[in-house]
Each structure stands twice: as structure tokens, then as C-alpha cells.
């Protein structure tokens, strides 16, 4: 029996889809059978981030409305054997699926996969309620901005009300230098407000933009800091104990040397 994890945030643009793609890819690379479920009906992105857009024939609405079987709609990833995507519909809206149907869908997926990871839409309306309906665990993504932290707090409250206790937190796009200068909220400040367990911290990294546009999750590139951060998160999701990454950038001689010879 697998585990259903919903990735949510409240605020848009903090990295839910990127996180979903990376955790899914990372788990599949470790040998787990993973299903990614895009519930952002009408504004789907997960397929694009994974580079699978042109393979879509059926989507989540076709499955819940009985137009096709679940197996037909699941798209196999082009790189990893164990990774599958159930895409959202683009020409429908959030009301095309009900929370009850989502519960049933998660149950069906759970029996076939080790992990089912749900990409939640922004907002707290029907899309959010659908996404969390069948989830066993929740991961909240936030960035070090007051607005994102405020929304994360609201989301944690709603998750607890829906009996998804003890959600885990991912802090995305942190800039250690700005935190040191006191210009950005630090990890402790955020934990202080939200009072939940930290699953991981991802530093701001230009490689995210590059890999996302290419349709290859950054976790596959272990030479990037964001890739390493995601890999650590993936191992924690899988149950390993991994120490937190040291975010302070190395500034020593070797770092400079590596940069010169292009190793980064």
C-alpha cells in the first residue's frame, strides 16, 4: 500500500509544481514506483515541467468521468521506468472533479504505486479541497516572504481542519547571503511562525529556470545546489535521516578554482 502526499502552498508561484516534479523524479530514481497527479485543472503545468506535454491523450477528468481507464491515462516518463503522470485537463475547470472522486482515485493509485504525489493548485477553493481529499500526508511549500508565509500558515490551519496533521515544510528560494544581511526572513523566523517540522530548504538557483524550461527536473543534476537540496528532501521522504545542507556558500580557494575550470 502506497502513500499519498499532497504538495500545497496557498500562494502561487512558490514552487509547488517544481517540487512535485523533483520529489517524484528523485523517488523514481531511487527505484520506487511513483505516480504524479496534477490537480490544477485548467492551468496544468506539471506535464510541461516534466517534458511530457505531447504525450497526453487522456487526463484526470476522463478518468473520473469514466471516459477511459486509469491505466490508459497514466503517462510513462521518458527517462525513468517507475515514474508515471496523470495529467490535469486543460479545457475544463476545478468543478469537473469532486473530492469523493479524488478519494477513490487516490485509493486506486495507492494499490499500484509506492508513492502518489499530488500537485495542488494555488488557492483554498475547490481545487485545493480536491487535492487534499485523498491525501495521507501534506507538504507545505513556502518562500521567505511575508505573504507566502502568511498563506502557508492559513493552509496549515486548513490542513489540520481536514485531519491532515503535522504537515512538513519546504522553504524554497532562500538566499543565504540576504538572510545574513538581515534582508530576508531566515529559516528560524519562518519555523517560529509556522511551528511545523522542516523537510528541507532549497537555495535560490538559476539552474531551476534552465532545467524547468528544458523539461528535466533539477534533481537529476547533482552538480547544482538546488539539485542536491531536492535529493536530500527525496531521501527524507523515503525515510532516511539526512542532515540539513549547509547553505553558506563555500568561498575558499577550491571553490574559485573549481569555478575557473568549470566544475562549479
Amino acid at each position, binding site marked *: 500500500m502506497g502513500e499519498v502526499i499532497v504538495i500545497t502552498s496557498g500562494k502561487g508561484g512558490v514552487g509547488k509544481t517544481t517540487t512535485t516534479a523533483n520529489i517524484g523524479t528523485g523517488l523514481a530514481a531511487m527505484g520506487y514506483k511513483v505516480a504524479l497527479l496534477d490537480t490544477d485543472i*485548467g*492551468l*496544468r503545468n506539471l506535464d510541461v515541467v516534466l*517534458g511530457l*506535454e*505531447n*504525450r*497526453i*491523450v487522456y487526463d484526470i477528468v476522463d478518468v473520473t468521468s469514466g471516459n477511459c481507464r486509469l491505466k490508459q491515462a497514466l503517462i510513462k516518463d*521518458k527517462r525513468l521506468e517507475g515514474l508515471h503522470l496523470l495529467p490535469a485537463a*486543460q*479545457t475544463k475547470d476545478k468543478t469537473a472533479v469532486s473530492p469523493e472522486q479524488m478519494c477513490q482515485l487516490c485509493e486506486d493509485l495507492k494499490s499500484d504505486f509506492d508513492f502518489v504525489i499530488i500537485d495542488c493548485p494555488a488557492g483554498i477553493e475547490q481545487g485545493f479541497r480536491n487535492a487534499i481529499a485523498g491525501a495521507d500526508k501534506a507538504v507545505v511549500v513556502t518562500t521567505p516572504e511575508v505573504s507566502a508565509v502568511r498563506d502557508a500558515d492559513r493552509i496549515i490551519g486548513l490542513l489540520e481542519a481536514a485531519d491532515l496533521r503535522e504537515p512538513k515544510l519546504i522553504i524554497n528560494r532562500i538566499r543565504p547571503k540576504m538572510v545574513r544581511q538581515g534582508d530576508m526572513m531566515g529559516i528560524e523566523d519562518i519555523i517560529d511562525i509556522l511551528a511545523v517540522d522542516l523537510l528541507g530548504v532549497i537555495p535560490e538557483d538559476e539552474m531551476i529556470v534552465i532545467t524547468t524550461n528544458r523539461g528535466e527536473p533539477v534533481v537529476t543534476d547533482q552538480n547544482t545546489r538546488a539539485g542536491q537540496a531536492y535529493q536530500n528532501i527525496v531521501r527524507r521522504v523515503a525515510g532516511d535521516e539526512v542532515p540539513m545542507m549547509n547553505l553558506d556558500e563555500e568561498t575558499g580557494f577550491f571553490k574559485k578554482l573549481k569555478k575557473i575550470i568549470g566544475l562549479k
Partner: protein
Amino acid sequence: MAYIKESAQGDILSGFGQGSQADDNLFDENTILVQRTLRSGQSVRYSGNVVILGDVNPGAEVTATGNIIVMGALRGVVHAGANGDETTVVMAFRLNPTQLRIANHITRPPDNEKVDMDLPEIARIKDGVVTIEAFQTGGERQGKAI
């Protein structure tokens, strides 16, 4: 001939042209003219031919039982001959679809190649395979009249 201009229409246009299939593959009576660009999430479904004066962006869908002609860039998903008619064609000024379907054939561009043709192209089924070639005027050179 049905005609749709930019208006307060919803995201999904659908309809059925009247008149039966004239001769062979010529749906002369039921053709819809969509005079706008289809953006992500918008779709056109029509029983007949569809002509689009604009682009079809990624995430948009056009489904027709007849032929589909895009007077612009086709970057979304198109399905011509949705009722199984293998004689239908898809033509576009810039044919770069996410996915191209004709009757029950589904094709997508290869993963690692980016071909950027700067000329109108036409897709049709030839010997059971979806074939894309440059569009040239003149019925004989096309193999058949459209």
C-alpha cells in the same frame, strides 16, 4: 457556413454544421470560421471543417470531423477526422503541434529534434502513416484535391 467572430463566447465552442457529406471527403456545407487565436485552455469542437484565422497555442485543442486549417501557427493539439475519416488533412502556416491526430492515428514531434520550418505544411495519412510535407498549391502535386 457557420461563422464565429471574436465575441463574449465561452472557452469552448462547439457545434454541428448542417448538410451531409457532399461527395467523398468534401464537407462543403459545414465549415466553421474561427476568427481569433485559440489560447491555452480554449477549444473548438465541430462536426465539419474548421478554419482558424489566428494561432492555436499550446494547451488549446481543435477537434473536427473534417479537415483543419490554421491560418497562423499551430502549436496546440489538433484532431482531424475525429469520427474516423482517414482522408482528412491538417494544414497550417506553421505546423508545430504538441500533438497531431488524424482519425485514430496519434503523432507527436520527436523528443530531441527541433525542426523549425518556415513554410506552410500539410499533414495527411499516406499508406497508413501520418505524413507531413510542404504545402504546395495545385491539386495534382498534393496527390488529391482538397
